């Protein structure tokens, strides 16, 4: 694993920006609670594969930007993303050798932790939210994870072979 230079960082930044855009893209009202946490999925992947370049600091900054974009309490997504990326970096060697089913199950657990932190902050702040807004993204995020991996793996291999 090499340290990412400038040419290696740009594609990753682009994927993160795209994931942020997917988070604010309008969806039909019925699909809205099932919007996968694209930002969380993207950050989990890069933290797993390049933990020295993309770690908790990135996650925190992106979380704050997400908070502003969505108008949630400032720091809510920062805290949640920071924590799950920490867990990912902590276990990244293990996660890399997992077969896909096991990795997906792990991501399910990580997404559940992520939603739990959001739920906990909402609870403390007194924001009342229907339960589907919490388990919806966990389910859809788990379903989309293999596709996210396929897509980002292509980008990562191209980046690392060029660099």
């Amino acid at each position, binding site marked *: 694993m090499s340290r990412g230079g400038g040419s290696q960082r740009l594609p990753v930044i682009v994927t993160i920006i795209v994931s942020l855009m997917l*988070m*604010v893209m*309008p969806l039909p009202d019925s699909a809205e609670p099932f919007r996968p946490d694209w930002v969380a999925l993207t950050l989990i992947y890069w933290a797993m594969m390049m933990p020295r370049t993309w*770690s908790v600091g990135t996650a925190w900054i992106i979380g704050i930007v997400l908070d502003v974009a969505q108008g949630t309490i*400032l720091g809510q997504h920062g805290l949640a993303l920071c924590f799950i990326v920490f867990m990912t970096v902590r276990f990244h060697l293990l996660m890399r050798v997992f077969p896909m089913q096991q990795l997906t199950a792990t991501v399910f657990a990580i997404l559940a932790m992520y939603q739990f932190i959001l739920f906990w*902050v909402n609870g403390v702040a007194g924001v009342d939210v229907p339960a589907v807004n919490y388990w919806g993204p966990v389910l859809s995020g788990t379903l989309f994870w293999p596709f996210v991996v396929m897509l980002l793996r292509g980008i990562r291999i191209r980046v690392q072979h060029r660099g």
Partner: protein
Amino acid sequence: MVNSRANSSNPARIPALGVRVLLLMAASILLMVLDHRQNHLDAVRKTIGATVYPLQIVVDAPFRLWEWVREGTSERNQLQLDLSRLQAERLLTNARLQRLAALEAENARLRDLLEARAQVRDEIRVAEIMAVDANPYRHNIVIDIGERDGAYDGQAIIDATGVIGQIIETGLATSQAMLISDPSHSLPVEVNRNGLRTIANGTGEFGRLDLPFITNNADIRPGDLLVTSGLGGAFPAGYPVAVIETVNRVPQEPFADVTATPSAALDQVREIMLIWSTPELADE
């Protein structure tokens, strides 16, 4: 946490990860407390909001483009139909406006006689809802008017058929607004027929408002129009809000169970209007 256990010769060890994560999480909690309890962070939000703005523009652009293409390629007879419909509508509204001018003059005279405060005249400006999703936990929208256009927190938003909501956070060029259907939104209203004052709460459904404080013997019935009473200070008086749908009088409860349907189609509008209330000089 990590440092105490990880072996320094372990190539997978990320330096000072545990310390960093603890610091960042503490910073998050500090931010949340400052933001939620005291609203000290408006400037921070605005600064970061400026970086989010291009993101919103890019997400909104395809929808705008689609709208533009659709308008440009709509068929001639469709346009003619629209034109004749709009002309007919304009004729009708013009006729009504003539009466309105006379009524306004009469109202001003009567108010003079009563020595009442002059009524507020409102300035209105058209804005558009951006195709950007806001807070997933609330009924919020993002609109394409911000501080540089003179928008302010608490400003009222209407459309052609009724009240929509109010601005809760102004950015530089965009703002977040809360719809009246948000569960944490309350709106002072009055019944247009008899002036009965009450509060309309959002329910989290676009098609329903709750009126929790109407006594069992109050004079209210389905079909009554609710208008803004202007008592809260945020909304100017007299704009239609909702129509009473059901009135359920429960004998053993102090308050009746009343619901209303918002006049504006909250989940369908795209063009909206912002109101600037400027009191006319009373002695003129």
